[in-house]
C-alpha cells in the first residue's frame, strides 16, 4: 500500500515535471510580427518617436555591443573596401558640433565622440528618440548589425542627401552630419509641415515604389511621426513586401517604412504605447487644447482659440494640466483670437509696485477692476492675501477701474457663500444668489473650497437665481447610462448636451473615463445639441 502511494506520488510528480518541460520547450513565437499588422497611417506613436530620453548613451552602447558581439574587422576586402573594418559599436568620429536652431533646440558639443554618444547627443539636441535614430541607421545602411561595414555606409549613414539613382550630396557626408541632418529633418517635417507633402491629420497619396506604374493608396496620417516617416521615405510597402516581412517582395516593393516599423518592434517593443488615435474632429467649446510639442495652451470658446497667456491666468480659472487635451488636426484650423484669455472673474490682483488690491470682473478677454477700499473691507469680505495674484503693474494699470468695494456686510460678485443653516453653497452673481446643487457641479466649475465664506444676512437676503449648472466643456453621463455628453452653452446662454457617439472619438479627444461626472438626470440639460463625431 505504502509502495503504491509512493509510486503514485512519484508518477504525479513526473507528470508535472513533464508538463513544465513541455511548456518551457514550446517556442514562444506568439509575439512574432506579421506583415498584415503594418499600420499604414500609424507607424509609430509621437510620444515614442519624439521621446529623446528613451535611452542613455551607455544604454545605446550596450545595445550596439549586443547586436554585434564580434566585429569581423579583418574580413576580406571587396570592391575597393579593404580591412580593417570598424563596427558601429567601436566607431568614433571627431565632430565640430552644432549650435541650436529653430528645429534642433539644443546644441551638440564638438570633440571626438563614439557613435553611441553621437546618437545620444543628437537625440537630446533634436528631440528625437535614440531608438528611432538607431532604427533609421539600420534601415538605411544596416549599420547596426553589419559586422564589416564600409566607410561609405558611415558617410551616408541615414541616407540623407542620397537619391535613389544618383550619388549622394557630399554636403551631408559623415556619420554625425548624417544623424544630425536626419533628426533635424524630422523636426522640420513637424514644425514646418506646410512645406511638405505629408502632414499629420491629413490624407495623402503614397506610392508603393518610385515607379508610378506600381500604384499606391491614400493614407490618413494619424501621427506627426508617421507623416514624417513618409516625408523622409515617400513610399509604403505593397502586399508582396508585407507578405514576406523579413525578406523581399516584388519589383514594386519598397521597404524603408516597413523596415522601420519591423525593426523598431523587434528591437524596442511596440511602436504603439498606451495612446490612441487622435480624433479627426474639433474639441468642443470649453476645452483646453495644446499642440503637440508646443508650450501654448488655448481655451476654445465659441469655436475660437484663446491663448492662456501665463500660469497665473491658468490657475485663476482653476484649470489643471490633466484637463489640457492634445489638439486634433481640426483644432489647429480653429482661428486664434488676437486677444488672450483674461483672468477669471472674482480673481484678486495687485500690481508688483503698488499695494492696492483689486477684485476683477471679467469677460473672456478683458477684466475691469474693483478696488478693495480698505483692509477692513478686505478682511470682512473673507479675502486672504495668499489668494492675491501679484502681477505686472502695467497689466493692472491697463485695466479699467470700475467700482470701489466698501461693503463689509455683503459679499461681492463671484463670491461663494455657505448658508450654515441649510448647508447650501451659493455663488453671488449679478445681484442674486445661485445655489450650487451638487459636489459634481462645484468641482466641474473649478470652484475652490477654501474660498467658500460664511453667508451674511445680506447675502441670504438676495433674490435666488437659477441653480449653477455644469459649465461648458464638462463631460457628464447619467447613472446607469453609458452615453457620455459634453455640456455646451448656446448663443442664447442656455445649456445643452452634445453626445459623443463613439468610444474611439472619446479616446481620440484624449478624454479619460475619470473625466466624466456621473450624475442624476436632473443635472443634465434636456436640450440636445449636435453630436460629436468624426
Amino acid at each position, binding site marked *: 500500500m505504502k509502495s503504491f502511494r*509512493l509510486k503514485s506520488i*512519484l508518477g504525479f*510528480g*513526473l507528470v508535472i*515535471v513533464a508538463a513544465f*518541460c*513541455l511548456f*518551457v*520547450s514550446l*517556442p*514562444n*513565437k506568439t*509575439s*512574432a510580427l506579421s506583415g498584415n499588422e503594418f499600420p499604414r497611417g500609424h507607424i509609430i506613436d509621437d510620444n515614442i518617436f519624439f521621446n529623446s530620453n528613451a535611452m542613455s548613451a551607455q544604454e545605446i552602447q*550596450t*545595445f550596439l555591443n*549586443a547586436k554585434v558581439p564580434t566585429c569581423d574587422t579583418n574580413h576580406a576586402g571587396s*570592391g*575597393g573596401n579593404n580591412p580593417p573594418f570598424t563596427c558601429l559599436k567601436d566607431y568614433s568620429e571627431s565632430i565640430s558640433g552644432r549650435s541650436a536652431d529653430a528645429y534642433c533646440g539644443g546644441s551638440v558639443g564638438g570633440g571626438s565622440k563614439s557613435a553611441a554618444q553621437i546618437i545620444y547627443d543628437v537625440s537630446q539636441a533634436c528631440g528625437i528618440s535614440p531608438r528611432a535614430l538607431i532604427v533609421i541607421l*539600420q534601415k538605411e545602411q*544596416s549599420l*547596426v*548589425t*553589419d*559586422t564589416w561595414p*564600409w566607410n*561609405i*555606409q558611415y558617410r551616408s549613414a541615414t*541616407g540623407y*542627401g*542620397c*537619391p*535613389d*539613382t*544618383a*550619388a*549622394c*550630396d557630399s*554636403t551631408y557626408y559623415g556619420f554625425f552630419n548624417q544623424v544630425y541632418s536626419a533628426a533635424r529633418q524630422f523636426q522640420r517635417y513637424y514644425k514646418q509641415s506646410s*512645406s*511638405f*507633402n505629408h502632414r499629420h491629420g491629413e490624407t*495623402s497619396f503614397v*506610392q508603393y515604389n*518610385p515607379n*508610378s506604374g506600381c500604384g499606391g493608396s491614400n493614407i490618413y496620417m494619424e501621427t506627426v511621426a508617421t507623416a514624417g516617416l513618409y*516625408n*523622409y*521615405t*515617400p513610399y509604403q510597402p505593397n502586399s508582396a513586401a508585407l507578405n514576406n516581412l*523579413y*525578406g523581399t517582395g516584388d519589383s514594386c516593393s519598397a521597404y524603408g517604412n516597413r*523596415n522601420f516599423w519591423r*525593426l523598431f518592434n*523587434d*528591437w*524596442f*517593443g*511596440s511602436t504603439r*504605447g498606451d495612446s490612441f488615435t487622435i480624433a479627426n474632429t474639433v474639441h468642443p467649446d470649453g476645452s483646453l487644447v495644446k499642440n503637440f510639442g508646443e508650450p501654448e495652451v488655448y481655451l476654445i470658446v465659441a469655436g475660437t482659440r484663446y491663448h492662456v497667456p501665463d500660469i497665473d491666468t491658468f490657475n485663476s480659472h482653476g484649470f489643471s494640466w490633466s484637463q489640457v487635451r492634445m489638439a486634433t488636426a481640426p483644432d489647429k484650423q480653429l482661428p486664434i483670437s488676437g486677444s488672450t484669455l483674461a483672468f477669471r472673474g472674482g480673481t484678486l490682483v495687485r500690481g508688483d509696485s503698488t499695494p492696492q488690491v483689486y477684485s476683477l470682473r471679467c469677460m473672456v478677454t478683458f477684466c475691469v477692476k474693483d478696488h478693495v477700499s480698505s483692509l477692513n473691507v478686505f478682511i470682512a469680505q473673507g479675502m486672504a492675501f495668499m489668494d492675491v495674484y501679484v502681477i505686472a503693474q502695467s497689466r493692472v494699470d491697463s485695466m479699467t477701474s470700475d467700482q470701489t468695494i466698501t461693503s463689509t456686510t455683503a459679499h461681492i460678485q463671484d463670491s461663494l457663500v455657505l448658508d450654515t443653516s441649510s448647508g447650501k453653497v451659493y455663488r453671488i452673481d449679478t445681484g442674486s444668489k445661485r445655489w450650487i446643487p451638487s459636489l459634481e457641479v462645484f468641482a466641474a466649475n473649478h470652484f475652490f473650497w477654501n474660498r467658500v465664506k460664511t453667508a451674511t444676512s445680506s447675502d441670504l437676503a438676495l433674490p435666488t437665481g437659477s441653480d449653477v449648472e455644469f459649465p461648458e466643456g464638462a463631460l457628464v453621463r447619467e447613472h446607469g447610462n453609458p452615453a457620455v455628453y459634453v455640456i455646451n452653452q448656446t448663443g442664447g446662454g442656455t445649456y445643452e448636451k452634445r453626445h459623443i457617439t463613439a468610444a474611439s472619438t472619446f479616446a481620440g479627444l484624449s478624454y479619460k473615463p475619470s473625466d466624466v461626472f456621473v450624475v442624476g438626470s436632473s443635472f443634465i440639460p434636456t436640450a440636445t445639441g449636435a453630436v460629436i463625431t468624426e
Partner: protein
Amino acid sequence: MSKNKKSSLKKHRNMKWAIVLVVACILGGGYLLARSNKGNDRPGDTAVNLESAADADKREAEQNKERLAKTKDGSDTTSNNNPASSNQKKSVKPTVTEATRTSVRAYVSGIFEEGGTCTATFTKGSETLTKTSAGFGNASYTQCTPINFDSSFLSAGKWSVALTYSSASSEGVSDARYIE
C-alpha cells in the same frame, strides 16, 4: 540479497532515473527556450532586445553591401547629379501626391537638389493656367514646395494638371492628374 534490500535498490534506481529525467528536461527546455527567443520575437513593451543580430538583419546587411557595390554611390564619387561636361539634362518624372481645387503637391525622385522650379499646368479644354513653386532637397529626393491657390483659381468643371520640373541639371513632367 534479501527481498527488502532488492526492493529498496529498485526504488533507488527509480528515483535516480526520475532525477536524471528532471535534470534533462530542465536543461533541454532551457536550451530550446533560448533558441526559440533568438528569432525575431518582439521584446516586451519596455524591454530592449539585446540578442545579437537576427539572421534576417545580417542578411539585409550583406544585401545592402551588394546594392552599394552596384550603385554609383558604391564608389567614392562626390555628389554630381549632372556631369558639368554634359549639356544633356537628366530626365526625371515628378510624382504628384495631391491635386485638389486648392493645392498641388509633388516631388521628384532620383535627384536631390536645390534651385529647380516646379510648374503645375492646369488644362481644361483650351484654357491653360500655371502656378509655380521652388524645388528643394528633402532627405533623398527633391520636393516641390506645395502649390496652394484660392478655390476660385480653377473654374467649375474637370481640370487636368501635370507638374513639370526643371533645373540646370534635370527636367521632366509628371503623369496628368484630374481635378473634379
